[in-house]
């Protein structure tokens, strides 16, 4: 499908322009273009090996594209020196597939890591401790401060990962398969946390996942800060909650390194493509 030139606006946080990534002979990403603006939610669906993780790492500048350009917060990071990249990266939260926690340090130290080592330094230890505690309370794990990541379950590790990703309150958070390998109940807890972070902080959210339910939840539910629960958004688009900044969720489907679909939930469900049909159950 032809990729339209993404519009550049002041609020564009992340933009990819005809990005191609190759590993030796293998093409991991081919001609990817898209733009994400502030507060936007974007769900990338795709089978294993379709280039989802590569997309996310390229967006962060962890992988350099072989062709095309990547813009983060309006700055071209394609050829940026690694050291100069740290400052830009510190404005992005990221959750890696298995959490990516450092196993040699405690949960509290893990969550404090972006504050202690990042460019945006919080000066006093008391302030750091406070923010670490807040972040861990957000994921309801404030009792695990002194534990090591190896002592936690898979779901808890993922939650600590989220706490670490959001502790700096970044305007953009990237989630790499947040529910992979988790049971449905834990997966729901994780997705609820991601929606909560999005709606409380109004963060732009990019989720890469294999489960269509994750995207559905992001598109159709909203965290109500009064009740403290997720609430469904009615189908005709008006929001029961008084939040006015809610924007429709965009879906992208990837296949073998290419974007084969980009559009809204309704368009996705209406698609007749067989590959897309494998992810999206037809609405009864």
């Amino acid at each position, binding site marked *: 499908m032809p990729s339209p030139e993404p519009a550049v606006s002041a609020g564009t946080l992340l933009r990819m322009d005809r990005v191609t990534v190759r590993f030796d002979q293998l093409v991991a990403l081919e001609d990817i273009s898209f733009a994400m603006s502030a507060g936007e939610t974007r769900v990338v669906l795709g089978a294993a090996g379709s280039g989802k993780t590569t997309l996310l790492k390229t967006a962060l500048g*962890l992988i350099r594209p072989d062709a095309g350009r990547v813009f983060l917060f309006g700055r071209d990071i394609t050829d940026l020196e690694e050291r100069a990249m740290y400052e830009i990266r510190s404005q992005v939260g990221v959750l890696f597939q*298995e959490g*990516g926690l*450092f196993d040699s340090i405690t949960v509290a130290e893990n969550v404090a890591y*972006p504050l202690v080592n*990042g460019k945006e330094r919080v000066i006093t230890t008391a302030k750091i401790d406070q923010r670490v505690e807040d972040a861990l309370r957000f994921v309801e794990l404030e009792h695990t401060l002194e534990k090591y990541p190896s002592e936690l379950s898979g779901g808890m590790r993922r939650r600590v990962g989220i706490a670490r990703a959001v502790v700096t309150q970044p305007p953009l958070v990237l989630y790499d398969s947040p529910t992979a390998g988790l049971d449905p109940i834990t997966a729901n807890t994780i997705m609820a946390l991601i929606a909560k972070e999005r709606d409380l902080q109004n963060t732009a959210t990019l989720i890469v996942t294999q489960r269509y339910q994750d995207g559905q939840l992001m598109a159709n539910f909203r965290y109500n800060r009064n009740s403290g629960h997720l609430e469904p958004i009615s189908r005709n688009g008006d929001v029961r909650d008084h939040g006015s900044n809610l924007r429709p969720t965009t879906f992208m489907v990837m296949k073998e390194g290419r974007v084969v679909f980009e559009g809204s939930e309704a368009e996705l469900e209406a698609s007749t493509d067989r590959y897309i049909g494998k992810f999206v159950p037809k609405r009864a």
Partner: protein
Amino acid sequence: MLEFLKPPVEAIQDFYSLAGLALRNVFRAPHYTDDIALQMDIIGVGSLPIIVLTGFFSGVVITMQMSRALAQYGATGQVGQIVAITLVRELGPVLTALLVAGRNASGIASELGSMKVTEQIDAMRALGTDPIQKLVTPRMLATCVMLPMLTIIADFVGIFGGYVIAYFTLNLTSSQYWTNAYQALEYNDIVQGLLKPFVFAFVISLVGCFYGLRTSGGTQGVGRATTQAVVVASVWVFVITALLTRIFVNLT
């Protein structure tokens, strides 16, 4: 046609760029002194027991073997000289380096390798830390400080091991052995005995880090990286000692 040369040439290039970055970071902030101290403890203090044991017994063995050859010339009294020179010039540095390569190059490669496959290295970069600054440079510095120290200890314990044999089975007097050993050593011997471990330290730590950071392919890849690191580090220890010995032999 020369396609088969590409991977090794690329590997060498990657190794040199890693070495260059690690060295450059020595003079650049931020300095992770906690990590350096921790690595010194793991590499230096952790290797001490095995270094003392092997050092002692290598001295014992050299004395026993050499006394037999020396007895033919009625020169058993000179055994201290032989023990001191072989240990200080060659065996002390090489044995210590091989043990540290086996113990720490593998440890470094497997630790960094597991961090690589569980995306901790990526997480580190994403969170604004240079993995080379945080992981490679402290290990390199710690090894460079600790390996010469371990070598000095191994040398001394080895000469002491020789003394035990010389005193109890060859019936030499203490002063005979120690004077002979002490007087045999020249400035040149000491310099090469301390320069060698310093060079080995770079090779061992950087090879360990290099294979660790290159790990791919899950837990199996970690095992492979570990093995490669030990083999490559050990081979380079022998190659470098041959080169350095050649230089120093000419200097005398």
